Each structure stands twice: as structure tokens, then as C-alpha cells.
């Protein structure tokens, strides 16, 4: 029964796509303090650096998870970066009114440096 349950969950996930292989829908971004952020590939590709990193020599193998370790970006910063990806994807080429992207002043500087590095 446990085996069946696991099988079911696997099937559920397969509906939603996964991080494995070169054509995966999602990729995993890992912050310096070990948090995993799973975001849609096309959102993450808005960052020039991430795009370059993913187009490096050698494709991801079929079962290998697409992931990038950011050993210098802490999670509170990377969290905002992922939110920005969603924000940009939602409001690019949109005719609706675009709300402000709110940035907490405490993390602003670090976020700025991360944005510089990630080119986004």
C-alpha cells in the first residue's frame, strides 16, 4: 500500500512536469543557506547569467536534476529574485495596470548586487 501511495504521488508530479532532463519545465535554484527554490525554466531564463549557465557545455542527462547552486546568494535574496521572475513574466507585454514591485529596504542592497550578478 505504501508502494502504491508513492506511485500515485509520482504520477501526480508527472502531470506537473519535473526538473529532470534537458527539457525539464522547472529548474532548482539553491541558495547559500541550503534552501531549494523550484521555478519555471522560462521564468528563470530571464536572468542572463542563469541562461548562460544553463547553456554550458554538456547537456543535463536524462535523469539529472537541473539545478544551480548559488553559494553567494542567501535565501532571503534569492526568494525575492524568484518573486521578481514571476512578476516580470506576468506583467511583460500586458495592458493591465502594473502594480509596484515592493522591495524591503533592508535587503535592497544585497538584492541589487544579486541582480547585477544575475543580469536581470
Amino acid at each position, binding site marked *: 500500500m505504501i508502494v502504491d501511495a508513492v506511485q500515485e504521488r509520482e504520477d501526480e508530479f508527472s502531470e506537473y512536469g519535473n526538473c529532470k532532463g534537458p527539457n525539464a519545465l522547472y529548474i532548482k535554484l539553491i541558495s*547559500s543557506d541550503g534552501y531549494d527554490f523550484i521555478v519555471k525554466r522560462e521564468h528563470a531564463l530571464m536572468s*542572463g*547569467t542563469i*541562461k*548562460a*549557465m544553463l*547553456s*554550458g*557545455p*554538456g547537456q*543535463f542527462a536524462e535523469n539529472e536534476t537541473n539545478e*544551480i*547552486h548559488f*553559494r*553567494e*546568494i542567501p535565501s532571503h535574496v534569492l526568494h525575492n529574485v524568484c518573486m521578481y521572475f514571476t512578476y516580470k513574466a506576468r506583467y511583460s507585454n500586458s495592458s493591465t495596470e502594473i502594480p509596484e514591485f515592493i522591495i524591503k529596504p533592508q535587503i535592497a542592497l*544585497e538584492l541589487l*548586487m*544579486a541582480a*547585477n*550578478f544575475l*543580469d536581470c
Partner: protein
Amino acid sequence: MLLRPGTVNFKEKWKCLEETVQSILKLDTIPRDVWHARFNDIYYMCGAFPEPHDDKLYESTKLLLETHVSQLLTLIQTEGTQNQLQNYCTYWQKYIKGITLLDSLYQYFNNTNRAYAETRSLHRRESDEPTMMMIRELGLDVWNRIIIVPLKDSMPKLLLDEFDKPRYKLSITTPLDTVAIILKSFIEVLEFNKKYPLELYQSYFEQPFLERSSEYFERESKKLSEELTVSEYIARVLVIMKEEEIRANKYLHESTYNKLQSKFCQIVVVDNLSFLHGESEAMIREERLNDIRNIYLLLCNVKDGFGSLGDVFKELILKQGNKVLESLNKNQIYVHFVEDILELHKKYKSIVADVFNNDFYFSEALDTAFTIIVNYKLEENQPSKAPEYLSKYCDKLLKKSCKGLSEAEIEHKLLQSITIFKYIDDKDIFQNIYQMHLAKRLILRQSQSIVGEEGLINNLKQVCGYEFSNKLHCMFTDISVSEELNIQFQKEFLKTTKNELNLSFSANILQTGAWPIIVSTKSFVIPEQLLNYSKNFEAFYKEKFVGRKLTWLHHQSQGELKLNYLPKMYIVTLHMFQMSILLLFEKFDTLKYSEINEILQLSDDHFQKQINSLVDCKLLLLDGDNLKLNMDFSNKRTKLCITSAVLKDIPQEIEQSINSVEIDREGFLQATIIRIMKMRKTLGHNKLVIEIISQTKSFLPSTGFINRSIKILIDKGYLECSPNLPVEYNYVA
């Protein structure tokens, strides 16, 4: 590690980076972590504190690339010339891949650099140090300097040799795809050179290539022109052209093909033009379609390549046309005229479409030739017979008596006749004659279908303009209105007089302006049987439409008589005058010639004609001066029609219409001249002539005609000659 700038030990970092770069250039696989880590390294180097290591990074990378490429160069040079092209190609492909990867690795570096370079250019400072290029550009520049330039003596020659081999049917050692890649590399290397990216390609390869190709073409064309006949030469040359085209498009840069083709045309076609033209006229005259097609393909790209071919083509058509005209079957000449010319036209039109690819030059020649053919004049001063023939042809097709052709065929033939109509010069003569025929058809109810008639008129309108069909449409309306009137009259007449009708009576009301009918006999006396009806009808009409004047056109009227005095009953359709003559015999058996004329009061020649027609068909017997009914009249058919003898197309009618057209033309021309001069006030003679010709669409005025009209207007005082020497006219208000 954080993203803040910190001190960075360049040498250490560079060692790791250098390794990675080397393996990238060799296209080895790099573990993912290493790849990601390098990004960080570059970031730190560029953002280092106290001073960024941009320059050092740049210099080291440059050095590394230079060393790598020099190694490749030595490899190429030492491995022998045979494999040189192949080696170059493989190394190049590897290199370009490596550079692309490097470029994405150094992305941060590129971005900061670009921003920096833009701000520098904004300040417009003269920079002593060359600006740092982006890595991709750097890589391409290094390749250009270190490999291509030293090889510039040997490699282009090899490339040219390879390309030449297929021409001489030698086997290729290096596949042409490789050659294509190498050529592309010349262009890609200068990718960032916005002003002149093809410089390398053109100076290294294209120039000598074009020269070689010219030599090849010259040699080939000379050889072929000596060995082969013109048609074979052309076929062979076309094959070569096709081959060259395929090769050039597949392997070379797109700009080269145009230059190659112009060289080809220059050498193979233009220089041999006299050779080609020698046969070309004969080809057209003998109508060798394949040869003509080939030579057209060759000459169409050359300016003025056709020379006098258009004229020769026109001559050919004219000759054929004249042959057709001379051999026209005299019987129903108009049918053959139209149909034979249409056949000829179809034939040559298909040649122009098929062989000459609907080229404007040749279809113009076709049109000119056919205008001459169609407007062919039997004698010098007579107008051409074409309008008359065409009008008769349409008349025949539209009458009810046209049997043996389905409706679709008739429609098709009518459409085709429009083609001939377009070529006719004297379109207004056609209009007049057509109107005459149409009037006859409508009155005598001979037309097959009103829809067909209107269709034809619409087509003519499209060619000629609105005024053409205005009158014709009026005629149609008149007929339909008259039919309604007749029905009303019958009803009313039945109501008012309770007499039994022993005749049926109908009248058509025609507007004077729209119908081409001339009132001739005014003094005719209607037979008494019809007097009652005509009076009633006049009263009926005057009641309906107050203020309109009615004039009876007896010479257009027809009637049907039942002959009861003979053993067999006959129904005869007769012209009005014939009928009135016969009706007189109801009361008398014999009548004298002069008596009949007295009663009827017809003009003499009309009367003569009518009597003769009745005598000819044996309804009356002539005995000296007396006429009597023929009691022994017999005929196979019961229903007869003897109007045709009287109503045939007399050449006089056609002449009359032509004359009236001439008068119309004079008036029209004078009105046009006055209109033009009113607008322009002053105009030179030549310009005036050009304006006139552009405004008269329905006929072509001759220069003599125009000059005469101008003279008349000067006499009348509308124009005057200006005192300036170049002949000018002023408009006098």
C-alpha cells in the same frame, strides 16, 4: 562568499579560469559545478576591490587565445596543402563553438565592458588604448589576424581550384560544403565590422573568383560557338547557366550570384550577340518555338538584348494576317473575318504567353500587328470594313435564327468578339452600325435573349465607356414600356368598344433621340382596316402622356395576313406597304398600277420595290399595266414571310451611318479642342495634338483631320495663332 566586492588574488583565480578556458576551446566536457563556479570567478574579478581586474582578465584571455590559434596555424601549415582546407574547416568549426561558449561565460565581463564603452563614447574622449572588445569579437579578431592573414596567399587559390573542378568535370577532392563553410568563416570573422563586413570575403575570394569565372566563360563560349549551331549553343549555355546558379546559391554568399550572372551574360551573350542574332530572326520566322524560348531566356536579362526581334515577330504576324485576309471565304465574309482573325490571335497570344513569358515588349508587338490587321482597308480612302463585319457577326449570333449553337457557345463567341472590338480604330462607326442592327432586332422581335444582348453591351461598355451604351439601354427600356402599354391598350379598347376584334394590334413607342430611324415617308395613307385602331391608339396614348407627339413610322411596320381566297389557307407576314397593296384587292380583283399608287401615295421607287417583291413571290400577277391576284398561288409551306426582300441591309444604309459618324466626329473634335484650350489657354501645336489623341478614345483622328479642325476654329474665331515663332495657339474667349 558574498557578492560584495573584495580583494581578489588575480593570479590564483586566473589559473583555474585558464584551465577551464583551455578545455572549452578543446570542446571537452566540463563538470557542471566547475562551469557555474567560473561565473562567480569572473564576477569577482570584475568587481574586485580596490581595483577591478578587468584589464588583466582581458589581456590574459587575449594572450591565451592568441597562443591557441597560433598552435592551430602551425598545425595547418605543417600538415600539407592537400588537407589544408579540410583541416582549416574542422579547426574553425571547433573554434567558433568554443568562442560562443566563452562568450556566454564571460557574459558579466561583456556587459560591464559594453556599458563602460558606451559611456566613454558618450564623452567622446580620444582613447589611446584600444577599447576592449567583447569576447566573441576578440576571438574572431584573433582568428582573423593570426590564421587568415598568413594564409591569404595559399588558401584562396585552393578554394578557387576546388570550385573550378566541377566546371571541368574533374573530381572534387574537398567536398564543396567544406568550401562553403570556409567562405562563411571569412564573413563571420568580420561579424562585428558594421561598415564593411564582406571585405575579407570579397578581396580574398570573390574578386579572383569572378576573374576565373570570366576566363572560364570566355573559353567555353568561344569553343561552343565554333563547334555548335546557334540552337545547340543556346541550349548548352542555358544548362551551364543553370548549373552555375545552383552552385552559387548553395555554396557562395548571396551577393555573389548577381555579379556572377551579369558577368556571364556579358561574356556569353552580349559578346556573342551578333552570332545569336544571325539565327534568331530565322527562328522567329520559322516559328521554332523551343529555340525561341531558349533564346528568350538568355536575352531577357540583357539590356536591349532583343534588338529588332520584336519587329521581326510583328512582321511575322502581319504576314500571317494578310494571308488570312486574302483567303477569306466570300460567302458570309463577316463570319470568317471575325473567326479566322480570332484564331490567329489566339495562336499568337499563346506563343507570347508561353514562349516569351508575357513579356511586355512582345505583347506590344502583338497588339500593334493586330491593330493593323483588323483595321485593314480594302481601298485607301475607304474606312475599314471591320466595324461592319463585327457588327453583322454579333447580329447573326444574337438573332433567333441562329441555330446549331448552344447558349454557352454563343456567349463564348460574343465574348471573343470583344477582343476584336478592342483593336478596331473606328469604334464609333461600329457603335452606329450596331445600333442600327439592334433597332431592327428589337422591332422585329428577332433577338434570341435580352439577357444576351445586355451582356454584350455591358462588355462593350467596359472597353469604351458609359456614353456608348446609354442610347442602347434607352432602346431596351422603350421596348419593355411599349409592351406594357400594349397590354393596357387591349384591355381599355375591349372595355370602350364592344366590337369583336378581328385583328390583333400592337404598337411600339420609340424615343426619337435614342433610335437611329429616319422618318422617310410622310404621305402614306393607311388602309381603312387599320385606321380605326391607329386613331384609338393615338387617343389612348395622348390621354396617358399629355404633351407628347406621336409620328407613325409605317416603313418599319409589319403585318400578318391570312389568305382565305385560295384552296389552302396561308399566313403571310408582310411589310406594311405590301400589306396595304394586297388589302386593296379585297374590294377589287384587278387594279391598275397607277390607281394603286394614287390610293396609297407612296414615293415611286418604294412603290416599285414593293410591287416587284409581290410579283416575284407570285402573289400578284403583272399583266401589262394591270395587277391582279394570283388565284393559282401555291407554296409548300403554310406560313410565309416575304419581308426579307425589302428589309435587307442596303449598302446605302451603312454608308449613311458612316457619313453621319464623320459629321459627328468633326463636331466632337472641335469641342475637344476648345475644351483643351480653355483649360490650358496657350499650348504648342505638338502638345495639343498629344492631348487630343489622348482624349478621343473611340476613334483615331488623322493629323490632316486635326489640322483642318484647328483651321476651322481659327476661322470661327475661337483660336488664334500667337505671334511667337514656335507655333502656339491662344484661346480667345
